[in-house]
């Protein structure tokens, strides 16, 4: 009997509750996220906060942003379950962290890392009027040589 409850009824029960709660949240969270990513040039949805990331992948993204000295807005998905689910649906991307530049989804940790390594990130930032600190450092080096 116990197993029956555990296997049959409980998941059903859980999913109904979840489904009914979600319909309320869905509309709001989508609009909320849309506003967040469109009002800011660079937005990072991550686990934890930049000073104390709670996931290695999120930390990697924070470190990349720091290296380029990018001003960004961060949102902690661990403190808001609605946001955590909402962001995955908004961008149709299953994992956290997620980076948005100029309202557009750019990628997660893997993509940020590769863009950083290939120099693509510097270009993307330039497009939205952010000068990467790495680029600034490089330019000042060149000037010194002259």
């Amino acid at each position: 009997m116990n197993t029956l409850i555990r296997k049959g009824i409980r998941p059903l029960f859980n999913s109904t509750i979840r489904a009914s709660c979600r319909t309320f949240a869905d509309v709001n969270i989508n609009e909320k996220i849309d506003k967040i990513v469109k009002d800011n040039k660079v937005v990072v949805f991550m686990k934890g906060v930049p000073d104390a990331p709670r996931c290695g992948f999120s930390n990697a993204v924070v470190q990349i942003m720091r290296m380029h000295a990018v001003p960004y807005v961060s949102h902690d998905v661990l403190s808001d379950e609605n946001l955590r689910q909402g962001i995955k649906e908004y961008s149709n991307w299953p994992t956290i962290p997620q980076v948005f530049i100029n309202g557009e989804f750019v990628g997660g940790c893997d993509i940020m890392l590769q863009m950083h390594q290939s120099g693509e990130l510097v270009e993307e930032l330039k497009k939205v009027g952010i000068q990467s600190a790495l680029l600034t450092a490089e330019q000042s080096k060149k000037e010194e040589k002259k």
Partner: protein
Amino acid sequence: MLPSVRASRNATIDKKSNIQADKKDVVQSFQRLDCEIKVKKRSHSSCPTIYQTGKNKRNGQRKIHLVNMSVESGVVANSIRNKLQNSLEATHLDVINESYMHNVPKGAETHFKVVVVSDKFDGLALIKRHRLVNDILKEELQNGVHALSIVAKTTKQWDESEKIIDSSPSCRGGFGK
């Protein structure tokens, strides 16, 4: 600095073979007990579990003992491998279970890294390649797989690369389930 500790995949493989040795021990010790062994998938998570079903001598009650298994290629890993192989006709495919690096039960299948080399990626931007892989593994990602790190290359890119895969950044404890 970035926490991209460059580790050759050998390190991962070593870890795996250790884990497999563990598994063998568990199975053997069960066999010694003359118990029926069933490998069953737990409904609420993706970790394969060994159920030991045998009657308790004292009171005759059926005793179920759960042992989390550390399986080199578990149920989820296999399904990931099959799906990617079938959909992308990969010329090289690695499915690495990195769950042991994280704050999850031993033997869990929650954190994966996949290395996919396929000519189907030709001409696709990185984000599209990742989306393709994510789409193929949609079911897994909704049911227990919590992190998926993707290396997606075309055969040409793979042949030209050093074929060294960076290990994923270490956990920071935030497995906020």
